[in-house]
């Protein structure tokens, strides 16, 4: 069985992102870039499935600029067997990414595709579901548990108010939530070994998919900031303010 893990190079989780001075986009000059945290969880899950003897190969794929090779090397150090970069000079929208992934899934004939539920840059939460629709594969989003069962995969999902378990026919799509697992750190020997693993590069044009932008970014602004509040001295002051000034309790 083959598992495909698409992953995205994004601004590091700890970076505070601000708009550019002219509000044309976000300011990504000289910021630290990392693997999207949800994609790391997806990769960890795939590697664990392989380590448990339930998969033969884990392939990491990224669709993006040439710099995304860094994140793919990280994926190789974390346990992916090989990696593919679909190189695109432009940042693509989820629909275009899903279309490119369809081609990779077909070329590699994978049985399970595990993705992060969303990337922490665009916060779209679309790619996995779009890939499922384009391939007519079943999906389980926001996974908190993945259990393989022959030609099926049972997935527990985090939904509003609780948990839901679905049984999917394979090939299937799973997108990961925060608490599916805790990703490992890459060890130094594995980082060295990763340098020798196969990383193939494919120009996006070779896939023959339509990647024309379907949206136009008009501006990026900081959110309205809240006016500074007051620091109170006592619990009595707090109750008084909530009752008589804010009038939110009675």
């Amino acid at each position: 069985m083959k598992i495909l893990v698409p992953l995205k190079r994004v601004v590091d989780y700890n970076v505070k992102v601000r708009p550019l001075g002219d509000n044309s986009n976000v300011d990504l000059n000289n910021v630290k870039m990392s693997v999207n945290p949800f994609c790391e969880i997806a990769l960890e899950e795939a590697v664990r499935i392989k380590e448990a003897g339930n998969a033969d190969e884990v392939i990491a794929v990224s669709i993006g600029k040439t710099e995304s090779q860094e994140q793919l090397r990280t994926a190789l150090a974390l346990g992916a067997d090989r990696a593919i970069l679909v190189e695109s000079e432009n940042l693509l929208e989820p629909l275009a990414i899903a279309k490119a992934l369809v081609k990779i899934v077909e070329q590699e004939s994978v049985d399970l595709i595990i993705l992060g539920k969303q990337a922490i840059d665009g916060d779209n939460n679309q790619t996995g579901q779009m890939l499922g629709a384009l391939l007519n594969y079943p999906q389980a989003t926001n996974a908190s548990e993945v259990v393989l069962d022959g030609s099926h995969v049972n997935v527990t999902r985090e939904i509003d108010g609780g948990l839901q378990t679905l049984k999917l026919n394979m090939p299937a799509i799973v997108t990961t939530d925060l608490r599916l697992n805790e990703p490992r750190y890459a060890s130094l020997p594995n980082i060295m070994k990763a340098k020798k693993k196969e990383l193939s590069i494919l120009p996006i044009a070779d896939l023959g998919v339509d990647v024309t932008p379907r949206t136009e970014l008009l501006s990026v602004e900081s959110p309205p900031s809240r006016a500074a509040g007051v620091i109170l001295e006592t619990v009595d002051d707090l109750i008084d303010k909530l009752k008589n000034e804010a009038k939110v309790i009675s």
Partner: protein
Amino acid sequence: MSILVIAEHDNNEIKGATLNTIAAATKISDDITLMVAGSDCSSVISESQTLEGVTKILSTDDEAYKNFLAEDLSELVMSIATNYKYIMAPATTFGKNLLPRVSAKLDSQQISDIISVESEDTFKRPIYAGSCIATVKALDSIKVISVRATAFDPVGTSASDTVVEDLPALSSAGISEFVSEEIAKSDRPELTAANIVVSGGRGMQSGDNFHLLDSIADKLGAAVGASRAAVDAGFVPNDYQVGQTGKIVAPDLYMAVGISGAIQHLAGMKDSKVIVAINKDEDAPIFQVADYGLVQDLFVALPELDSKL
């Protein structure tokens, strides 16, 4: 310009986020069809007939849609989607699961999580965990849009009797199957629907200490939430989490107790009307967004607050 809004419900009652989604739709057009697909959901249909802003209801009552599987529900939406210029759903786990499937089948790039309608094709949406707000123009002819419920006031109800048309069910794709569901039972209001939310963070130190919040929440008729740090530490279950990757709330009153105020948490609650922060660390970033701050040890402040409410 016709709009199809996909209703979220539990076969028993309509979910609140649907009303906010209809409200967002009314900012685009007044030609709004509400699609209600489920199983044994006649009470949802009757309730839908009273919603303001809805001009027509399409109803599918069939076993196949009992658990709202995205594979089957997206096909049902597709059977009518091209009759509309907009397809909209709430950006809840229901809408997030379903809508991108519809969008991809329509070859349209979905606009996720809109917080305002600027014009018929331009919308604002948060990116980077709410650190920035993007204004985006959608170029596709059919626009697929998910709506952040907290950004729009819900539509009201009236005694109107909106016309209901049957939408025929389709046969299931049979590629996925519902196994089970565990929905947490609580006498308290649901986090996203509560007027008051009392949340605890890592400062609570243990799950047991959450009883200090429970007691206050019961007196205020509030829901109890938590920061990601408190959930990761195992104090409370996943579905308590308020934040960019958890629930987005905007109650009248949000009390953050022992929460430092990481950007991911702020993204989930900063649209609350009144924010109270209780934290012994006066430098905690939560105080920068709080209307009222109390720099005190929560283990002193909470019992006092509890006794005086």
